[in-house]
């Protein structure tokens, strides 16, 4: 999958996540008066929302890689970290909203035009940051964590802003929440993809075969590649690729390619290698598949 499609896919997955979260949030918010206090309410509403977002983005690699293994793998950790992140994010977002909103509450001129929407957006951004972090923590990747934080903050902020302004058009809050959550999902997804593209400094571009044109970002400390869908880059549709074929390790600023002791071998610029420091433009051959290694400077 090309990087552009990847961003589109992440955006659409985000949309689906927002749509799943919406009725659940409606249900919880509708029953708000059942809760003993604001703290418990925020924790419950936040963890439910967080679980949906966590699991939703947790399955994104599985959906993009069309791998049921990765799909299932992403769910439990997504649920766990999502519940934690969502609860903390909602509690924090609520605190931020109350704090900022109360400040603006005393500025009659600014309150409705700016103060309230701004406070809500900052509150949502806070929530978004925690939700965005879930995927980074789940996949234990610092770069993904950073990407998620930035993407979540932007997505949350704009989602919250949209929520407020939609409310001006449709005073019934559930419409606003539909748009707000949908946009939050889309923007976290897109921002995640965009930031990921911008911040990652190397990729493998697939030159041939059924997945020709796909670009795999090397965002982890160690990226593994093999025929198995369990590997970070799963080449299920290529011949002569072994279960685990190579791994690429990031050492400071360089990327080291290591063959995992395969029979069919690994080639860089048509030379068979066991271990090699990659440079921009190198052509990698793994079984039938040929990649171009791309380094961003």
């Amino acid at each position, binding site marked *: 999958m090309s990087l552009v499609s990847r961003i589109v896919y992440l955006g*659409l*997955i985000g*949309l*689906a*996540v927002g*749509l799943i979260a*919406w*009725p659940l949030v*409606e249900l919880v*918010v*509708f029953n*708000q008066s059942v*809760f*003993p*206090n*604001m*703290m418990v*309410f*925020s924790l419950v*509403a936040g963890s439910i929302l967080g679980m949906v977002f966590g699991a939703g983005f947790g*399955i994104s690699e*599985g*959906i993009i890689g*069309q791998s049921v293994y990765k799909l299932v793998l992403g769910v439990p950790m997504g649920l766990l970290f999502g519940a934690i992140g969502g609860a903390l994010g*909602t509690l924090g*977002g609520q*605190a931020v*909203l*109350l*704090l900022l*909103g*109360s400040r603006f*509450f*005393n*500025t*009659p001129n600014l309150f409705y035009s700016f103060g309230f929407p701004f*406070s809500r957006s900052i*509150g*949502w951004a806070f929530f978004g940051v925690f939700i965005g972090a879930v995927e980074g923590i789940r996949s234990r990747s610092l770069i993904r964590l950073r990407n998620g934080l930035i993407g979540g903050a932007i997505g949350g902020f704009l989602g919250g802003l949209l*929520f407020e302004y939609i409310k001006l058009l449709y005073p019934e*809050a559930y419409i606003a*929440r539909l748009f707000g959550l949908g946009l939050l999902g889309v923007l976290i997804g897109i921002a995640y993809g965009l930031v990921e593209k911008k911040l990652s400094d190397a990729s493998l571009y697939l*030159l*041939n*075969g*059924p997945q*020709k044109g796909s670009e795999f970002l090397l965002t982890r400390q160690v990226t593994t590649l093999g025929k198995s869908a369990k590997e970070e880059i799963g080449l299920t*549709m290529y*011949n002569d690729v072994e279960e685990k074929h190579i791994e690429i390790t990031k050492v400071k600023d360089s990327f080291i390619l290591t063959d995992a002791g395969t029979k069919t071998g690994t080639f860089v*610029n*048509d*030379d*068979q290698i066991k271990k090699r420091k990659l440079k921009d433009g190198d*052509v990698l*051959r793994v*079984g*039938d*598949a*040929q990649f*171009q290694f791309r380094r961003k400077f």
Partner: protein
Amino acid sequence: MKKVVCAVILFFVIVPCFAEKIIISQIDNSSLLVNQNVQVYFSFIDDQGYPVENLNKDKLRVFENGVNRNIVEFKSKINVNQGIKLFIVLDNSGSMYDDASGNATEDVQAQRMTYAKKAILSLLSQIKNPHDKTGFMSFNTSIGTIEELSSDNVRVELSLENVKRPLTPEQSYTELNEAVYFSVNRVSEQSGRKVIILLSDGENYPKKDNEEFKQRHELSNSLELARKYGVSIYTIGLGLGADNRYLASISEKSGGSHFQIDNPEELDQLYSFIRNRVLNEYYLSYPATMSSEDQKMVRIEIAGSTPVVQDEGSYFSAMVFGKPTQEFSFLLFGAIVFALLLLAFLFFVRLKKAVKAPTVQTLSSAWSKGKAEPMTIVNDGQDMIIGNDAGADLTIQDDNEVSMNAAKISKKGDVFTLVAEDSSVLINNQEVKSKVLRSGDIITIGNTQLVFDKGMTKMMGSKTKSKRPKK
């Protein structure tokens, strides 16, 4: 005799007669999320305008949005040492330069303005609390000098000196109502206890079609604003000819007091009066309701009082996810079904053009950033010439490093062979004379990179093809 009357007015009969009063000065929601409690600061004033110091908790009722709440904490005499923000507003209209009885005079010492200035200086000299802040503004037909709130009283004194008699009748009007709005709006954004001290001879005497105030503000709205944001207005009527009734109504509606003076020394006690009044407050806290409103109304009343002694205020209580819908419908869960279908679609469906025929396609080049359409190699036995010659099958333009016919690709059945004509041709970053091409090979010619692809059907066709000739 006159002095006695004034003393009575100041200390006992604050005009007009007071009724008992509750004034909510602040509603604090900062611990709402922690323990669900809302904290309310308020004062209770007796019918003489003095703070009542022994209010009993059992006499109080608290309502949030009309729902009775339990008081969980109750304290009196809190924050006695807290700072006050005093914003002094001085009428600088033409009549302020009359004498106390409202007669024109050229004797500066007899003018109301002189009294007013002395009164302000006296007030400033009484301020001892380092947390207090003072600000100042004057007004007539327009808003004059403005000195923002600061802890430096000297700045107010300097501004005061700069207040000069208006030169023209045009400048001499009394835009009292606008001055009230302006000053309330000015201090409303400040935190803590806010007090406006308005010194005037009392008549609202606006200029018709005043360019300065194209949009007029109703006095009652301004006073409502003052109440909402905890701004108390203390009015000081200068001279017996002043419109004390008007000023008194302003102060009463905002929770302040009115004083009538015709001698600046009569204000000796003003500062301590205000301090005592403003800071002698009660504090209570109660658990908030769980209904979802962006703002909630809080009302405190004295139980059994007739007419009801009460006050109302509001606090910000918006929830991060907003208000609930009127009715919940399980139809909303349709969104989940739709979302799952979308996810299934994303999982199963890939939109892509399958490359079937053998092609050569540019990857990146100096002359074209984007990818050109793939060029198909069709005929057996016919060479595909690549070079910068316009007659080549694949022409690489504007690249001087590329010779006319740099390379050719020939096809024999399934085997494609590239033969390089000059040394600038690289395959997979290696210099070669000739090579049997493999799907995914990168052919570099000058600044241009081409990707060779045999096409899907050929490549994935059979396992037997997988043994590839080594270089």
